[in-house]
């Protein structure tokens, strides 16, 4: 059996590479975008906050798979075409930015009003107040929720199969069908668990680093 598992490894490794690629790109792009979304959502210009609310509603209110299909197969109808990978990344980033945006908004709004007032009477600019006072405190508050989303994202990456991109789960399914064996799928499960374990440890470390106060 070990020998059989060994023969599966190359295709699994290829699948894992795609999974990680989608995962990392989504994370790196959607977290900054999420901060922007949270700001647009809080902003006191009604039109902008309403449009942002609508965006969040659509992104959270429809399945991610549908969004991928829509961007890859639907947008070409009106003349906008992306290659598979770009379409997938756009869908993931837009979807996750909506979730992150709402998490960040909750974090920002839970910060005591006195912090803004202290910054104001000290004469700090709005930009400085946000980057130096609000954001660092917000990150500490939202870390557990972010960890949750990150782990969900690891598993969501398997959705890219709908546009025909091969990733980890698909590599397992292919081998499973070919060899009429459940072992490839079990192996895939173990790989997902290992990934999740790594991220759990990483986030525990980050949380610990932020626990220097209160």
């Amino acid at each position, binding site marked *: 059996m070990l020998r059989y598992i060994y023969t599966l490894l190359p295709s699994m490794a290829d699948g894992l590479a795609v999974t990680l690629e989608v995962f990392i790109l989504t994370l790196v792009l959607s977290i900054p975008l999420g901060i922007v979304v949270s700001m647009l959502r809080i902003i006191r210009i009604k039109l902008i906050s309403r449009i942002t609310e609508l965006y969040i509603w659509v992104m959270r209110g429809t399945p991610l798979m549908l969004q991928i299909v829509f961007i890859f197969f639907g947008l070409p109808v009106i003349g906008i075409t992306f290659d598979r990978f770009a379409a997938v990344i756009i869908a993931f980033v837009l979807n996750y930015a909506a979730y992150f945006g709402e998490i960040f908004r909750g974090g920002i709004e839970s910060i005591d009003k006195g912090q803004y007032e202290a910054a104001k009477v*000290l004469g700090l600019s709005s930009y400085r107040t946000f980057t130096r006072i609000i954001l660092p405190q917000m990150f500490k508050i939202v870390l557990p929720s972010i960890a949750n989303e990150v782990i969900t994202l690891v598993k969501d990456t398997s959705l890219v199969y709908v546009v025909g991109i091969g990733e980890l789960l698909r590599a397992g399914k292919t081998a499973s069908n070919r060899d009429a064996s459940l072992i490839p799928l079990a192996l895939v499960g173990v790989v997902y668990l290992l990934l999740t374990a790594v991220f759990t440890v990483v986030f525990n470390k980050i949380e610990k680093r932020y626990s220097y106060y209160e």
Partner: protein
Amino acid sequence: MMLKVDKLSKSFGGKRILQDISFQMEKGEVLAILGPSGAGKTTLLRCINGLEKSDNGTIVIDNMYLCKDYKNKIIYASPKDMRAIRRKIGMVFQNYNLFPHMSVMENIIEAPVSVLGLTRDEAIKRAHSLLKSMGLENKKDFYPFQLSGGQKQRVAIARALCLNPKVLCLDEPTSALDPELREGIANIIGKLADKGMGILIITHDMDFAKRVATRVISMKEGRIVKEAEKEDFFSEFEDNRVRRFMIL
């Protein structure tokens, strides 16, 4: 004159919170505003610090207009003037509002570096001497949650002082202090006034006002009901209390 408030009024939801408030504060003066809760003391302080906008009236801080009446409308200082005014007035909140993610030193140097444009080293130097005068030099790397209430308050004072304000406002400075610590804060306030700073204190603690203030204003239901030099204020006050006691 360090601070002048003239005919200040503010309503909120149809309720008048401040009515026709006028007073002045000179250089080196410690002015205490006394009154029960709900008298509008804190709102007044927030208006003076630009945290709340008043409906009518004039506020002048060290010869700069924070707001003034013009043809029955109130106009506020431009953002540029506002920045200059902010440097002239410091505020110590009742619950201090220290930045919890920053050490004592970082709390104090944040504004001097970003507002006054001091270099980090200059700001640290300035903060050091302030912390020393507050007896906190060994706490510079502590975080606010590691400090006692009295220590937090002194850090908040140091943070405000690091911008060299002309006027320092303190909101209920004794509300969270043990009796022994009141004397310490009273000494700090006295020293600052001796150096020429104008100190405005909001409090309902009469003993403390009696200890630190040079002049006292008493507020009730949004109005100033009495203004006097400290000696006159309290001697008359005692008389009244005795009189009322006798009548009862």
